[in-house]
Structure formats: structure tokens, C-alpha cells
């Protein structure tokens, strides 16, 4: 009997816990306090408080020379800064270059760019201090050091943006002790010479890879620099507990008057996107770093309380189907055009809910040279069938359609498969992990005929899309269509040294016309970021280059 009693006791205890929980469910209700209406980029900033941001998983590292992903950049912007940045505004206005630690953006009119367009002069802001414990003024020498450190770093992924600087290649190959084209004129002046004029050089200088960090700190922390960042930004990275959180606190040395607004920014790295949304609703979290999960999007936007805290912003990116022009039957432009006519992109965008908007050209909205009224192909299966018949495939053909296995690719692959089937193309889908996939489609020997890909902007210049995606096909490159058209190549080469912006843009529009007529790609859509912030957040917006600008947000209640 006693046995029964002790076992029963355990059970009673468990039932009690369960009952307690259920009982509380019955009488429990959300008691969120009604705060004032949401403020976005407008409104008066309030000082003080803690901003909590969720991310699922942590950044690989916070080293500006190496990191090349939006999560790392979002966090690094707290603490690292460079010569140039972009205007702190949403939409197209945010694509405008602005000085950060330089006093102005070099231009021909202010004498920052020489007459031959090869020499750039940057004047550095005076009185900018590195964060504690380095706590000294930033000089031109620090910028040169940081630049050379990046070019020498074996894992730096973006050195190719800067090999145009005179002497850069020799330095990387170990044939020179310094980059001769990167000159320190005096403590607050830098002069950079490039081998030939380049309309995108200032954009490259605005990327985080060139951000400044002090040599003595790098020497001191060694490899740990990846986790112990130190720069000139508004927040000091106080600590990074791996897998758990990264916390930034106000930088008392910060140079920009009145900034930053909040005292602390806490990145919570342990939230899966669905629970992050629940945490935002309970008030524990202020900003969803990963945005709203696709499955919760519709419900959240239609919610009377929370709908107004949803923030949709077009990302400057293009999702498309590439067709390898060297692989049969995609060697025939008619077949490629047929695929363009066969895909019902409107239905596909609907399938993605709020994550997609219509795009019928290579250059997405927000990218210069994008033409709002342009529509190269419309959904027209009859025409697609006709083109296939003209190409000698009246009964269609069989093909393997490739993609990686991360959302939304599997969804897209199925939708495209359906549409192709309707015009007689029998596609079997093959999905794999990302690392395998990106490698596979970059190699001509993989003989991938057709598949999915996407491209996100590095900087707001159309060369960033047209160049890597549709010119100069090389093994291991990004031109998955292995497309090359002599006319496009010629225009592209000419555009590189064309200094008149209007002429340059016209050239890119012409290139886009040529490429779309050849149809090495079928454009699917432009992705949309579905952001969300809490009731107490001010200053929230989505920047076209930097994405979420945590360091510029504030708390309405200052807590």
C-alpha cells in the first residue's frame, strides 16, 4: 500500500502542476499596457533604455575585413565606421552616399576627385576617438593600416573590389610592403589612386570592409578580434556570450553630438522566429531581427493590434531562374524565351504572401537604371508552346531543375515545375544544401541547365547586377547562365570608365534590353523584408543597403 501511496504522491504532484497551469490558462489573459501609437523614422528621439533585438543564431564573426552577411553588418554598424556610408533614410533616398568619418564625399566639384578620375582625396573628421580602452584620436594612418590588413587577410572575401588601387595586387602577392596607391598625406588626409577610372569606386569605399580599427587592439587580441570588435561607432560591444547574446553599450567617446539614443542594445541570439514574435507581443523583445516568419505574416498584418507594427520594405535583390546557354536545349534563345513566357510569376508572388513583389527585369526597384514601366515578358503559355515548337520541341522535353533546400527555393521550384509542365516541359526537381548548390551551379562541368538563384545588392549601382551575373562567364563565378554577348561586354567595359552618370545609366538600360532579349534568365520577383517592431520602438526603418539600423532606433518610454 505504501508503494502505491508514494507513486500516487508523485502523480498527484504532477497533476497539481498541470492543473495549476490549466487553471491559470483559464483566468490568465494578456495584460499588455496600451502605449502610444507607433513611431517610425519620424518623431523625436528619446534618450535611454534598452533595445532588445532577436536573431536566430549568431553571426560568424564581427571582423569588418571578413564578414559579408547582413546579420553581421547590422551588429557591426554599432561599433565600426568607415570613410563613407549612405544617407540614413529608407527607400531610394538611402542609396545616396554620405560622409561618415570623412568630412565630405569626394567629387569633381569639391576637388575630391582628380580631373583624370583616378585620384580620390578624403579628408578625415577631426576629434574622432577610438572606443576605450584604446581611446585615442583616429588618424589617416589607421585607415591605411585597416585597408592593408583587409587586403592581406587570407579569408577576406571582397578584396576584388579594391584590386584596382595602384599597388594593391603587388601588396597582396607579397611583392610590396605597402599599397603604394593608398597614401597618407597628413594625419587627416588620405589620397587613393586607382589604375583606371571606375564609377563604382566610392561605393566600394562605403562597404564595411574598409572600416577603421586600431592596430594596437588587433595586435593585442589577435584572432579574438572576430569576437572582440573595437572601432569608433556609437556603441561599444560590451560582451558576446557565444550562442546567447551580444550586448552593446553606449560609447561615451562617441563623436556625433546627441547620439546614440538608447543606453544598451541587446541582441538575443536564442530565439526561433515564431517564439520571437510571441516575445515581441509580451513586450520582452523590441525588434525581430529576422523579420516575421512567413507562416505568421498574414495573421500578423491582419491583427488589429499588431498590424501597424509590421514594416514591409523591398530588398534590392532579384530572384530568378537561370538558364545555362551552353547546355542543350537552353542553347536556343527560343527555348529560353519560352520558359520566360511559361512561368506565371503573379501566381508565384501570391504564393509567397508578403515576401515578394512583381519584378519583370533584372534590375530591382531601388536600383538605378531600373525602369518602372518595363515589362519584357508576360505570362503567355500559348506563346511559350509556339516558341518551343519553333525551336523543334513541339512535345516539350525532359530536364532537371536545380535549387537549394532553404526556403523559399523548394516552394519556387515546385511552382515553376508546374508551369513548365503546362507547356510540355517535364522538369524533375533536384534540391541540395546551399554550400553544395552554389558551388555546383558555378562550375561549367556540372552541366546544370536550369535552376534557381538570387542576387542581393552590394552597392546601389547597376554594374553590381549586370557585371557578375551576365558578363564574363568564368568557372567558379556568379554568371550561372554562362551568358556572354559581345555587345553587352563592350557596353559594360565602356560603362566602367564612363563618368557621366546619366550616360552610364542609359548604357545599363541598353544592356538590360539586350540581355532580356537573349533571355538567359527568367525573372521571378523582388523579395520583400517583412520587419516588425514592438510598441515602444521609435526610429525603425529598413535601409536599402544596411537593412535594419539598430544604432539609430530609440525607445519611446526611454526604458
Amino acid at each position: 500500500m505504501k508503494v502505491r501511496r508514494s507513486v500516487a504522491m508523485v502523480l498527484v504532484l504532477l497533476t497539481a502542476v498541470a492543473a495549476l497551469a490549466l487553471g491559470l490558462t483559464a483566468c490568465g489573459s494578456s495584460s499588455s499596457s496600451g502605449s502610444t501609437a507607433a513611431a517610425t523614422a519620424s518623431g523625436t528621439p528619446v534618450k535611454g533604455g534598452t533595445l532588445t533585438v532577436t536573431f536566430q543564431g549568431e553571426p560568424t564573426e564581427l571582423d569588418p575585413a571578413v564578414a559579408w552577411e547582413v546579420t553581421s553588418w547590422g551588429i557591426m554598424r554599432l561599433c565600426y565606421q568607415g570613410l563613407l556610408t549612405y544617407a540614413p533614410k529608407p527607400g531610394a533616398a538611402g542609396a545616396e552616399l554620405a560622409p561618415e568619418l570623412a568630412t565630405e564625399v569626394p567629387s569633381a566639384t569639391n576637388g575630391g576627385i582628380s580631373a583624370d578620375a583616378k585620384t580620390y582625396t578624403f579628408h578625415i573628421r577631426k576629434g574622432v576617438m577610438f572606443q576605450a580602452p584604446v581611446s585615442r584620436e583616429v588618424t589617416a594612418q589607421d585607415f591605411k593600416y585597416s585597408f592593408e590588413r583587409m587586403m592581406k587577410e587570407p579569408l577576406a572575401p571582397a578584396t576584388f573590389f579594391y584590386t584596382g588601387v595602384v599597388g594593391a595586387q603587388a601588396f597582396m602577392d607579397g611583392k610590396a610592403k605597402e599599397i603604394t596607391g593608398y597614401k597618407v598625406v597628413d594625419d587627416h588626409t588620405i589620397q587613393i589612386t586607382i589604375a583606371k577610372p571606375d564609377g563604382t569606386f566610392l561605393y566600394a569605399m562605403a562597404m564595411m570592409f574598409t572600416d577603421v580599427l586600431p592596430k594596437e587592439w588587433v595586435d593585442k587580441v589577435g584572432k579574438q578580434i572576430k569576437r572582440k570588435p573595437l572601432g569608433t561607432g556609437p556603441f561599444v560591444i560590451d560582451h558576446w556570450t557565444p550562442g546567447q547574446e551580444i550586448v552593446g553599450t553606449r560609447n561615451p567617446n562617441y563623436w556625433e553630438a546627441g547620439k546614440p539614443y538608447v543606453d544598451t542594445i541587446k541582441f538575443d541570439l536564442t530565439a526561433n522566429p515564431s517564439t520571437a514574435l510571441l516575445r515581441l507581443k509580451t513586450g520582452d523583445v523590441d525588434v525581430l531581427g529576422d523579420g516575421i516568419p512567413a507562416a505568421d505574416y498574414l495573421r500578423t498584418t491582419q491583427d488589429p493590434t499588431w498590424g501597424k507594427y509590421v514594416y514591409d520594405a523591398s530588398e534590392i535583390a532579384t530572384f530568378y531562374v537561370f538558364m545555362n546557354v551552353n547546355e542543350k536545349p537552353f542553347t536556343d534563345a527560343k527555348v529560353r524565351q519560352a520558359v520566360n513566357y511559361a512561368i506565371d510569376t503573379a501566381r508565384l508572388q501570391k504564393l509567397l504572401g508578403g515576401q515578394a513583389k512583381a519584378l519583370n527585369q533584372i534590375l530591382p526597384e531601388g536600383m538605378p537604371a531600373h525602369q518602372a514601366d518595363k515589362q519584357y515578358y508576360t505570362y503567355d503559355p500559348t506563346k511559350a508552346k509556339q516558341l518551343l515548337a519553333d525551336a523543334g520541341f513541339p512535345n516539350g522535353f525532359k530536364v532537371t531543375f536545380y535549387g537549394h533546400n532553404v526556403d523559399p527555393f523548394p516552394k519556387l521550384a515546385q511552382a515553376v515545375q508546374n508551369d513548365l509542365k503546362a507547356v510540355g516541359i517535364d522538369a524533375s526537381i533536384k534540391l541540395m544544401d546551399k554550400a553544395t548548390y552554389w558551388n555546383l551551379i558555378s562550375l561549367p562541368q556540372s552541366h546544370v541547365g536550369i535552376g534557381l538563384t538570387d542576387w542581393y545588392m552590394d552597392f546601389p549601382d547597376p554594374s553590381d547586377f549586370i557585371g557578375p551575373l551576365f558578363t564574363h562567364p568564368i568557372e567558379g563565378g556568379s554568371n550561372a547562365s554562362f551568358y556572354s554577348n559581345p555587345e553587352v561586354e563592350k557596353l559594360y567595359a565602356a560603362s566602367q570608365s564612363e563618368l557621366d552618370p546619366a550616360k552610364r545609366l542609359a548604357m545599363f538600360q541598353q544592356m538590360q534590353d539586350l540581355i532580356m532579349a537573349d533571355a538567359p534568365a527568367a525573372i521571378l520577383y523582388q523579395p520583400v523584408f517583412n520587419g516588425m517592431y514592438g510598441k515602444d520602438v521609435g526610429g525603425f526603418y529598413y535601409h536599402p543597403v544596411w537593412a535594419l539600423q539598430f544604432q539609430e532606433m530609440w525607445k519611446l518610454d526611454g526604458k
Partner: protein
Amino acid sequence: MSKYIVRRLLWMVVVLFFVSIITFLLAFAVPGDPAKSIAGTHATPEVLQRIRTELGLDQPLWKQYGLYLWHLIHGNMGYSYETQLPVTTAILERFPATVMIAVFGIFFELLIGIPVGMISALRQYSVRDRAFTALSLIFLSLPGFFLGMMLMYFLAYQVQIFPLGGYEGWTAPLYGILPGLTLGLGGAAWYSRMLRSSMLDILSADYVKAARAKGLPERTVVWRHIMRNAWSPIVTLLGMDVGWFLGGVLVIEVVFGIPGIGWQAWNAIQTQDLPLIMGTVLFAALLVTVSNFVVDLAYTWLDPRVKYS
């Protein structure tokens, strides 16, 4: 006995060696390129080549494996391709979170599974037995992610008793309860079914009848005669669970946002971070072999009839 222990330990080394070879070959059988995932899709072929050289990826396979083994023998599991941090650090940083989930998971499995199993066996075919059978089936078939989300929704969002996922270290054990319960409810079903059947076998044994016949109190019969012999399958199951849980339970970690080694390994697979994959697989294999070994030793203590030589 000591001979047996030495032999088992040697076998463990052999097992780990083969695990390392298989993992290494499997990772290489995948036609990806870690350099591509480090540099991103925008990098040029020159940059990729430089990264491959830096990481030694351009060396022949046997050389890469040899070097890996050489370092391993010296206690160095190498550096993660992605973060460039030592693999040992990466695993040990994430391990406490995994241990926390494992401890809570096993605690709830036993807390629920053993009493339920005992009641079911001692009151076979009673209403409670049938109810427990039905519940066991339900919890066995509920996927962990669903159960986890439900528990979180009701016990952390609707009623805010527990945190909505996350992990704040061992000083905040509250974060371990819901993940532990999710693991425990599913696992308890196994334990209760196992215990029920092993107890039922024993209940009809002659020595139990004898014990009862000589008038021993029921408590003594159950604990000294029945349970003593019913423990073995439970211990086996426990040994397997310890190894399995400590290797990282991915689904639970992702649902609850627990930064454990399972989640880390999953990321490593996505980015083809070979040293980190190798490290985690070896670490998990070590845990499984060690816990099996401990279980085997435990048998000799539980059941004096078991002897190893």
C-alpha cells in the same frame, strides 16, 4: 574485470577511429566547396582559391585526413572553417546548454516514466493502465517540435510561467524546464512501456510468488524482488538516452532556441564546416560509447550474476 575494462577502452578507440574515417569520407563525398560558403556567393574565383589554399583544401584527401588525425592525437581538433575558432572551444562553449536539456529531459523521463510503468504493471488492465497506455501512444507519436510549441504557447505565452524559449546559462534553470518536459514526455512513454513489460515478466516468477507466500510486505516484494530485476532494461535505455541527448537534440534546441551542440552541428553541415562536423560527431560518438560502457559496468552492480571476463 580489469582486463575487460582495458579491452573495452581499446575498442572505444577503434570505434572512434572508424567513426572519424567515415565522417571524413562522407563529408568529402558531398561535392560542395567550404570556401564558397565562407566567402559567399559574390566572391571571385581568385578569392576562393586563396581561401582554399589557406585552409589546406587544395591538398589531397589522404594528406588532409592524415594531418587531421595527427592533430587529433595531440588533442587538437582543429579550427572551424567559418569562425576560425578552435573546434574544442566551439563545442565546449555550447555543451553546457546541451547538458542542461539532457539533465532536465532525463529527469522528466524518469519522474514520469517510472511511476507510470510501475502502476501499469502492478494494476495490469486497470482503467489507469489503459489510460496510461493511451497517453503513452499519444506522446510517443507527437513530434517534439509540435509538443514543444504547444507547451510554450500555453505555459509561456498564454500563462507566463516559463520563459518563451532561450537560454541564459545554468544560473537560470527555468529555461530548461519546458525543453526538458518536451523530451521527457516523449521519452517517459518508452520507459513506462519498457518497465511495465519487464515487471510483468517478473511478477509471475516463482521467486516473487515465494516472497509473497512467506508474508513479506508488498513494499519489500516490489522494491527488493521485482524492481531489482526490472531495472536492467531501464538502465540500458538510460545509457542510450544519455549518449543521445548529450550529442545534442536538434529539434528541441531549434524550437526552444537553445544554443547547444546539435544546432551548432546543423549549421556546420549547412556551411560544410568540416572540422566542426568532425569534432561534433567524434564528441557525440565518444559520449555514446562511454555511456554504453558505464551501463555495462552498472549491470555487474545491479545483477551480481553478470560477470565480465
